């Protein structure tokens, strides 16, 4: 049995069952997550139709090397995140099961309306999970903006359906080729806004600071790595491969991405709370990845996206745990914290340095790739802005690391007696997983060919400069 639809329906089945079998819902969650992780390695690439109706008429799941990579990384990260915070998940087991189904659905589906349904499912689970912090105002903000955003996505989709008479991604993509792209600016813009709310791009990310800034280790890691990764993979699918963006609109979207990147990094620089710094770093990274996808640089965008979600899984787990235990995440009151938790400190440092893009870390490989890609497209101005943002990013991350490692005042003698009196204990599962993830970043940084050979050689899709989605869809049409 190697049908990818099982990635969606097995968690869903477990979710329905977990209402009746209340006592074992946590077990069901782990069963489904482990099943999915095993399943993603068995499934074969291809086009899987549902209900027996061929592609533009029924719904299909499209498993190509792009979505395969996406489901592999998202399912593994999901499992790791719930294992790391397994003491927190009991109340939310059913919600997490539904979200696992929805996330896989978003990544796999080859139908724009089906994508909307799964987007709804995933965002509702996100609203529910965000109430964990008991800051209901922020959850309400998120709910309002998110609902409005998915409403706009649906509106844009209705217009596209009215024009093309189809909801299938490949079908719309092939019909768009022979259509004047300038006439499609309104539906494209609506769909963009709908996805941008969830992807935290600039004018639409007002919810992110409140929600992310109050997360614990479970929700923070889940949002910043699993959810953010999924929505960016979907963004890359829709705007990098399916919809053909006119050159005028492309300019607008790239500017939005750039502004998000620079404003995000600048805001992160000005923050003093650990989780807020990480939120704005996440926002900046979303902007960067989105702008790469829109530019057609799929391969560098995926590299950067993986860099971000692995690093953020580590950092938000650590930050969430710190704020759970120490009841604060103000960096100044956490001085020298890592001196007593060296393993965790090591992992956090590796992920921060990888996000900056220093050599020896995986982030360097992704950053050099994206810069080379931009140079080859002669987008020198964009590359210059990205480098500028990197300097800001480097400044605040290194300042953060120095404070967290070095007990005592800046520029003064560091002494063990200045170590913060806040005690933060990390349990074994967190230590092991966080450390293993940081080793992956290091290993992939030293041997980048490992990443390239293992992930992308099976299919040329990601290496091609501007892949067109429709030619990739085998059979069924």
């Amino acid at each position, binding site marked *: 049995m190697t049908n990818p639809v099982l990635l969606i329906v097995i968690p869903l089945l477990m979710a329905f069952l977990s209402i*009746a079998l209340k006592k074992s819902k946590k077990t069901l969650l782990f069963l489904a997550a482990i099943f999915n992780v095993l399943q993603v390695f068995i499934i074969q690439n291809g086009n899987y139709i*549902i209900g027996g*109706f061929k592609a533009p008429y029924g719904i299909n799941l499209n498993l190509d090397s792009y979505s395969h990579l996406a489901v592999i990384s998202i399912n593994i990260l999901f499992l790791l995140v719930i294992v790391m915070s397994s003491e927190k998940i009991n109340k939310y087991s059913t919600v997490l099961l539904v979200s696992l189904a929805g996330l896989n659905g978003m990544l796999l589906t080859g139908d724009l309306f089906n994508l909307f349904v799964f987007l709804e499912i995933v965002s509702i689970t996100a609203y529910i999970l965000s109430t964990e912090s008991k800051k209901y105002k922020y959850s309400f903000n998120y709910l309002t903006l998110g609902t409005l955003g998915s409403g706009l996505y649906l509106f844009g989709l209705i217009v596209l359906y009215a024009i093309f008479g189809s909801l299938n991604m490949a079908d719309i993509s092939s019909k768009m080729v022979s259509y004047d792209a300038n006439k499609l600016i309104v539906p494209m813009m609506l769909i963009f806004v709908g996805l941008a709310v969830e992807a935290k791009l600039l004018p639409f990310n007002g919810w992110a600071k409140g929600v992310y800034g109050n997360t614990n280790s479970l929700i923070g890691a889940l949002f910043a790595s699993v959810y953010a990764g999924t929505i960016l993979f979907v963004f890359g699918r829709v705007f990098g491969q399916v919809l053909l963006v006119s050159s005028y609109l492309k300019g607008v979207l790239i500017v939005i991405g750039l502004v998000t990147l620079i404003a995000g990094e600048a805001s992160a620089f000005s923050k003093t709370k650990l989780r807020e710094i990480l939120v704005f770093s996440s926002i900046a990274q979303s902007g960067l990845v989105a702008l790469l996808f829109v530019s057609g640089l799929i391969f560098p965008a995926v590299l950067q996206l993986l860099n971000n979600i692995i690093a953020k899984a580590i950092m938000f787990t650590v930050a969430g745990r710190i704020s759970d235990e120490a009841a604060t995440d103000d960096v100044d009151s956490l001085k020298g914290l890592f001196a007593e938790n060296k393993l965790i400190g090591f992992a956090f440092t590796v992920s921060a340095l990888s996000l900056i893009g220093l050599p020896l870390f995986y982030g360097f490989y992704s950053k050099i790739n994206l810069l080379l890609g931009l140079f080859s497209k002669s987008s020198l101005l964009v590359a210059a802005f990205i480098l500028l943002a990197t300097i800001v990013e480097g400044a605040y991350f290194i300042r953060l690391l120095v404070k967290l490692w070095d007990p005592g005042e800046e520029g003064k003698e560091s002494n063990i007696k200045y170590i913060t009196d806040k005690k933060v204990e990390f349990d074994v599962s967190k230590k092991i997983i966080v450390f293993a993830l940081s080793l992956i970043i290091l290993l992939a940084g030293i041997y980048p060919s490992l990443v390239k050979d293992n992930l992308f050689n099976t299919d040329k899709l990601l290496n091609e400069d501007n892949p067109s989605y429709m030619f990739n869809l085998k059979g069924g049409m």
Partner: protein
Amino acid sequence: MKKIVAILFLGILGFFIFSGIYANDAFGSFGKVNLNDRVSNKFITKSVTNDNEIVEYNKSSNLETGSSNYVTSIVVNYRSFDTLGEVTVLFVSSLGVALLLGSFGGKLTLKYKANFILRVGAKTVFPLIALIGIYIFTHGHLTPGGGFPGGSMIASAVLLLYLSDENFRAKMSSFKLTESLMGSLYVLVGIFGLFTAGYFLSNFLNTGVVGNLFSAGIVPIVYVLVGLKVGSELTGIITDFLKEEVNE
């Protein structure tokens, strides 16, 4: 001032959206659209997998979807996966309501004592409304309606009981059990199709003659499951909302 700016901004935005959609030929004018370009055409002629055949009410048999209601044939056959998704949307919403409101607030006490006629009347209409709800979702493949409206009617009947009698309490555990069972069965029907016919949610039963009550294969089965599930979920939401407001 802020409001005026907002209204102005909204007006400009609306103008651009409106003109962007209607000022070009994006929408073909009425009657000018080539139906063969649109997927819906084949939904109507029920010819996605076969060639065009004339579909006759009460005569044609064993079509790819046996539902005489077009909407149902799209919602529960061609795009059944979306319906499974929508069922999940409602499921997770009711779960969210339960998680949020379940922990606080006592039982709501009505400010009035319902009079005799309301109490007896509500109990009399309850089975009738529930029966119509059941009729609507069992006949979803023949007449307008289906699982969602039918289930909502059942939940509205329960609401009526709540409003007329403050001592009435729905047995939530049995509703939860129904909800769980129906959802699981929907998925299992799909997985059964995957094992027998090779496609998730494929219609593995004989679709019968168009227009008969026993026709359309798994469509009525799915609609009964959806109807019961929606009914129990909405009842759960109503029960969760019947709590005293808490001022924190």
